[in-house]
């Protein structure tokens, strides 16, 4: 299974990142790339609960695949959302469900951000993506 282009780019950038500071800077840069959400989209219906930060996730059917948009009020979480979206962009539904997202964060060196802590929003986002893809 080949990586989508943006995911390849993320892998190249993050795996070359030696320390926490560079990683944080890169995450914030990736966070800036997120497609902005309209005010009307930042509503409870699109909120992913289980995050202490506010997170919204929207899925739209585009031809064969789901297209996700997401945002958060926390900057580093926006970066994490961006690399997550990069990994799944353009995948057909069936493939999306089978992507090993934990492995993806491991490859990027961001596995700690997937810790099982309740305050960690990313697990809730992964869960929500799977629900949306499965439905």
């Amino acid at each position: 299974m080949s990586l989508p282009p943006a995911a390849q780019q993320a892998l190249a950038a993050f795996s070359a990142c030696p320390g926490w500071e560079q990683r944080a800077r890169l995450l914030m840069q990736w966070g800036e790339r997120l497609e902005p959400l309209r005010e009307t989209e930042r509503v409870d219906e699109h909120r992913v609960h289980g995050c202490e930060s506010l997170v919204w996730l929207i899925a739209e059917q585009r031809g064969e695949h789901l297209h996700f948009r997401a945002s958060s009020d926390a900057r580093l979480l926006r970066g994490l959302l961006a690399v997550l979206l990069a990994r799944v962009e353009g995948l057909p539904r069936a493939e999306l469900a089978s992507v090993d997202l934990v492995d993806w964060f491991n490859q990027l060196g961001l596995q700690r951000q997937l810790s099982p802590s309740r305050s960690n929003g990313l697990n809730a986002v992964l869960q929500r993506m799977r629900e949306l893809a499965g439905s």
Partner: protein
Amino acid sequence: MSLTSPWRADFPGILALAAEGQTYLDSAATAQKPQAVLDALLGYLASGVANVHRAQHLPGERATRAFEATRSKAAQWLNAASSDEIIFTRGSTESLNLLAYGLEHLLQPGEQIVISALEHHANLLPWQQLAKRRNLELVVLPLDHTGSIDLQQAARLIGPRTRLLAVSQLSNVLGRWQPLAELLALARAQGAFSVVDGAQGAVHGRHDLQALGCDFYVCSSHKLYGPDGVGLLYGRREALGKLQHWQFGGEMVLDADYQSARFRPAPLGFEAGTPAISAVIALGAALDWLNGLDHTAVAHHEAALHAELLAGLQSRNGVRLLGEPQLALASFCVNGVHNADLAHLLSEQGIAVRAGHHCAMPLMKSLGLSGAIRVSLGLYNDSEDLRRFFSALDNALELLQ
């Protein structure tokens, strides 16, 4: 002046974390354990376990004696009138739930339960749910700007319909001792029951519960340098006598038939099933260890370290303290910086602090915050821990501000 903790070397956990590059500043969530506690746990588990209060055999007798010895130590530690006033539970949360069920039959629709705006969920939700079950009014005492319960308002709000007052001794978010003597007097004047949540307060200083004069006091072993899974519920003898039984099963029963049963009084009547025997015994070791300390030295160390923490936070641009903390901890947020981002970058640098709502969501909402960072201290922390924290904070803020 650089503060070093003379007790740090007694804590293998704090040393192991430090060796791993982790600076532990989350003792208000749970504290590290001294070697004496680890020895007691292993000693009991390795020398042949047995259930308590049941068996006639030697191992059973030995376990029962050690278990009951902790009850006596806890009674002495809290200056209870008798060890019969100490009930073992799973923690402060279970103690408070026990009280909410045990007192339910004494509360009538329309009567009031009074809590404060700073209560964490453990001392809010059991009362909130009891109020719903019995159609009671839940009255919330407001705070002043320092983070103390406002006594003037309390005097107005605690009235003839007040049947129960449940307040924290020390806030887990604001780090302030609450004016218990005055509040308890207000409750007493109305003939209301009083419950003090000592989950945070029990760790800092010795508390004389007879002098304090509350009906019930709860705390948890795991914050008191003891094992997790054990809580203490102190109840004045007369108050305990009014509690209804709430959990039913082995050991709490006096006599049972298929259709009916009679139950033991406190404490055993409220300890259904097999308790956390090893943890209770090791809590005894934690209390012995604490008893052996120079309490003045501990208090000085904790106060000096707290002053250092506050000075460091106050000297940084944009840092906003929540309330005016007096000891043990400080919660803060930074203008223009999301607390989740800050928490993320502190974790990346091996700083173990708490971030989020600290199980006190209504308090955060009332302060207009989505969350905050909390630094909390144990007696094993020292200036070097704070230096690492501040250096990490500066690094993080440089990126985020």
